[in-house]
């Protein structure tokens, strides 16, 4: 953005030079930021390839013997592949949870944007208030609520709270108000489509970029959610991967060798996030660009 506007504002011969300078500066800032964010991941990758002994004795940011696959094998062999189970749990909590949360948020936001009903603004304001309450603050009240119905330490204890996304409702409402024209909904009604059919066949197409955004945000939020499972779950078979790795990490003083598993496990646990992002950002970019053209 700054690179585009800079030449317009400046005049004369210096404009090209300045534009190069500002471009270099912008690139430098981005390069530093990239380095800052990628170095820990690089460290994680390098550490994951080392044997236990090399871990403390070799340079932390460069390879020793390449043992990545042996380490992964050891991780999956440990305690009957419980790590694989955790990965699947996380995929289920985050995948299904984010999909349903997106659907509910889109329906709610769309309804608030497109239908006039009593208490509409009050409802929206309450949901907006929900954006301000951190999920961590709700974990303990949720635990006490779930205790009352005897549902702690179950799949539902983590899954149900994941279906709520106040931010998603907010985004859907804004996006629906801006990008789904009332005329199109009218046209659909005239053609005989019911409200539900209109929503699913016409409006969701136009909401797609917002939906992808909500899904991504919610997926990452659930995948990284650690505090709620920590408070709710006692059965190892129900753990998501974040909680499982944390539990292992607290056992390091008892079983020092487990450290290597925590490291390789951490590496594997971020791969699904990377795949989801790379897979979905295509929709995201094209959607935002479309929005800009309107």
């Amino acid at each position: 953005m700054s690179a585009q506007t800079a030449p317009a504002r400046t005049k004369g011969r210096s404009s090209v030079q300045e534009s190069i300078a500002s471009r270099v500066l912008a690139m430098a800032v981005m390069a530093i930021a990239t380095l800052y964010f990628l170095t820990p991941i690089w460290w994680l990758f390098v550490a994951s390839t080392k044997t236990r002994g090399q871990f403390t004795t070799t340079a932390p940011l460069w390879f020793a013997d390449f043992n990545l696959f042996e380490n992964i094998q050891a991780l999956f062999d440990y305690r009957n592949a419980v790590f694989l189970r955790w990965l699947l749990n996380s995929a289920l909590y985050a995948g299904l949870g984010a999909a349903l949360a997106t659907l509910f948020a889109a329906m709610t936001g769309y309804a608030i944007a497109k239908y006039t009903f009593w208490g509409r603004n009050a409802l929206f304001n309450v949901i907006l208030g929900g954006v301000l309450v951190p999920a961590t603050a709700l974990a303990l009240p949720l635990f006490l609520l779930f205790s009352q119905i005897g549902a702690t330490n179950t799949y539902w204890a983590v899954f149900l709270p994941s279906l709520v996304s106040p931010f998603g409702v907010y985004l859907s409402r804004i996006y629906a108000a801006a990008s789904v024209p009332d005329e199109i909904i009218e046209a659909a009604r005239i053609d005989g489509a019911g409200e539900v059919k209109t929503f699913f066949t016409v409006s969701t197409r136009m909401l797609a970029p917002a939906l992808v955004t909500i899904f991504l945000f919610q997926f990452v939020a659930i995948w990284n959610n650690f505090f709620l499972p920590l408070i709710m779950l006692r059965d190892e078979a129900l753990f998501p991967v974040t909680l499982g790795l944390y539990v292992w990490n607290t056992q390091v003083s008892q079983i020092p060798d487990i450290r290597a598993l925590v490291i390789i496990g951490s590496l594997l646990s971020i791969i699904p996030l990377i795949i989801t992002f790379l897979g979905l950002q295509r929709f995201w970019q094209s959607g935002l660009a479309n929005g800009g053209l309107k």
Partner: protein
Amino acid sequence: MAISRIARTGAIVAAATLALTACSTGTGGDGASGDCAPSDGPVTLTFTSWLPGVEEAVAIWNEENPDIQVNVQTGPNGLGGTYQNFFNQLAAGNAPDLGQIEYDAMPNFRVQDGLENIAACEGILDARSQFVDWTWSQVTFGEENAVYAIPQDTGPMAMFYRADLFEEAGIDVPTTWDEYRAAAEAIREEGGYITNFSQSDINQFAGFVWQTGGQWFSNSGDEWQVNLTGDESLMVAEYWQGLLADDLVSANPPWTDEWNAAFNNSEVWTWVSAVWGANTILSGAPDTAGNWAVAPMPQWEAGASAAGNWGGSTTAVLKGSDHPYEAAQFALWLNTDADALTAMNRTAQIYPATIEGANLPVFTQGVEFYGGQEIYQVFAEAGTNVDPNFVWGPTMTQVYNDVADGFSGAISGTGTLMDALTAGQQSTIAALRAASIPVQE
């Protein structure tokens, strides 16, 4: 969360607090006088423990006791979240029947009335003779007719040292703390450090104070006394402050890579640590295999044999259990049965709290990493020399955090270890008062 915990404590205080000597209101409100009866019919118990692989030991029990089945639940270690979970569950009324609780957290659970008194349960009082002396006072709090948990494992302390380096340099292996300082100076001239002072894990320092005969807490029955700045504590603090000031010990944060590396590259020569430290070194310093040995802790007086303790857990029956009898039987079996102890040692490397446990085959063999020395005999001996009168306080998490802050400050040049204890003394009294726990000024 801290607020709700304090509020809850306040509510409970009226009923339970001071009562380290009063008798507990058991399930029947009858104290320890015979209200621990077996349940009718088959029973299923829940047991929360973060011990890796504890399921294997439990499986042995489940096979032998079809009518008392135990389900294992797990989580992070106590301070990592499981204690808070226990308190949440106690408040919600769905606590597990049994839980793993470390010795230093027991008073917190007792003060918050989270433990069942199982003294009346069959065979529990008689089990005392099976356990290392000091562990039993940790689970009874010195009360008559009271047992709140069964000791599981211990961490008697001794000195790991690099036998090869000491021999090459011609330095005598220290037996007193004075010799330890002299050795530290000699080792510094060789370019190494005698040890690493644990700045952020206060448990090691507590172990030193314990060895010296110091007392951080005591309870007179109606109020707590806090004494982080007693003569023994200050003596230990001054000793280590002196080593730090003269650059005779390193101060890497414990349990980090650089800390492991300092052992592995022979920079650090000794570590006064608990029995489980044997595996820490083995894992963190693989290049030094065969060069380590174990000797008793250095003493303040030549010829003495006092030892400290660092770590260890109990198996407690949590308040509200519907089956305290069965839970108590299981807890006793888990921590005394040779097969169970062997299994837990295999999967979690625990060192048992029973006297007989020290004679398990795994503890009577030489250990290759330690040059074939029968190192566990040293720790068994140390275990019998641990002062049974040491008492933990009800807010140890806070104590550790506050003192660790002060220690880290002292190492980076702000204040001294003694200042840290003085500050810790004040903040601990404040914390107890904030939790409505009666405390002497």
